[in-house]
């Protein structure tokens, strides 16, 4: 069971972003979200390094080497964009000005603990970047992740085994298999076509509940 592709996960997330939202894009999967926002909605994407109003990737040859996103890839600015120093940019997350940070995750616990900055011993010095700042402050934090590791081990768990980024912050999880709300435990709102609830439970390291209105996970036509 592979379920949705990375692009399909980000497409699915984009469908849920409300018009007018200020949305931070974490590195990894979240940076793929912007092209999939439905037309007619204005979403202001923030990049932690001081950009508000991030647009799509520039055409080849049109890159400004000093205009990059948090993942250090070249980006563009949309009309209405603004630039802040790090001091002002990092007021926007803990201060609750960002409506929804979209964050990649290694693990999420059943109470919404997030682990997305440190795995077990790759031998390199640790790096945290803006991960912890992004995870605090917003009323909603959406995690984007593969449902299991490459070896098939669950990444949604009763308790995270990796170092925490922040406790009790994730409110919604989008994976290649399901969309799950963190609400007094884990509530499954959508399951990918071809997978039943019992099978999803075996791939999840914590108890999940089926929402009464659970439906097949939507994908791009």
């Amino acid at each position, binding site marked *: 069971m592979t379920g949705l592709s990375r692009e399909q996960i980000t497409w699915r997330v984009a469908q849920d972003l409300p018009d007018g939202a200020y949305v931070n894009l974490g590195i990894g999967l979240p940076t793929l979200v912007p092209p999939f926002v439905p037309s007619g909605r204005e979403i202001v994407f923030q990049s932690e390094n001081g950009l508000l109003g991030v647009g799509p990737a520039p055409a080849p040859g049109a890159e400004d080497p000093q205009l990059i996103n948090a993942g250090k890839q070249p980006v563009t600015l949309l009309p209405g964009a603004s630039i802040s120093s790090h001091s002002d940019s990092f007021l926007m997350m803990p201060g609750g000005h960002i409506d929804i940070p979209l964050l990649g995750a290694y693990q999420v616990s059943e109470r919404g603990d997030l682990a997305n900055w440190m795995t077990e011993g790759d031998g390199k010095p640790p790096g945290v970047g803006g991960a*912890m700042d992004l995870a605090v402050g917003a009323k909603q934090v959406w995690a984007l992740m593969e449902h299991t590791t490459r070896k098939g081990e669950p990444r949604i768990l009763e308790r995270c085994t990796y170092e925490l980024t922040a406790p009790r912050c994730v409110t919604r999880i989008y994976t290649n298999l399901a969309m799950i709300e963190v609400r007094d435990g884990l509530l499954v709102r959508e399951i990918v076509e071809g997978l039943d609830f019992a099978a999803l439970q075996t791939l999840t390291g914590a108890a999940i509940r089926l929402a009464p209105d659970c439906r097949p996970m939507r994908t791009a036509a």
Partner: protein
Amino acid sequence: MIDKRVADIEAAISGIADGSTVLISGFGDVGTPFELLGALLEQGARELEIVLNNAGGGDDAIVKLLAAGRIRKVVCSFPRSSLGNPVFDRLYAEGKLELELVPQGTLAERIRAGSAGIAGFYTPTSAGTRLAEGKEQREFDGRLHVLERPIVGDVALVKALKADRWGNLVYHRAARNFGPVMAACGRLTIVQVKEIVELGALDPEQVVTPGIFVDRVVELGL
């Protein structure tokens, strides 16, 4: 007359003492004053504590300072580079380099506190995580916070786009990043710019870093 312009990069970097805490602007390569750092390598100061977001990569001037054994401690949020940084990794593994890992927003705010004479602040960032260990944690309004102390720079090395002779600065795009907050925090703030313009040529509404925070500017044409 106020004139913060210096003739060349050697003059810009002169007088940095051994043991200094040096703030370095930049996010990855963008906004990093690599030419000033190259001059610092030549200048010779040792036992430096550097404060920056990343810790260099490839064969850039930060890596050269590390390789030359000139750095005692790195305070940063993300000491990793897509270009790799085997020098940092080795020094860290051998215990020859002290690393203080700080969340990026906390890093910016600690520097801001240092620039403002503020003795500390409580933030929710990192509360309940490994990075809060050993720090005071305290609940406010039902939420756990961490006490963070300021960072004060003996020196700030900053890259900007334009300056005037009073040291007013404007930046380019995402190269602004840590420049303004670090410029305000350095006891000695040294700025490399592409271009020095006439006094009055920068619109006061558009100046990002007021010249009061800046001590020296050097024009490099890049």
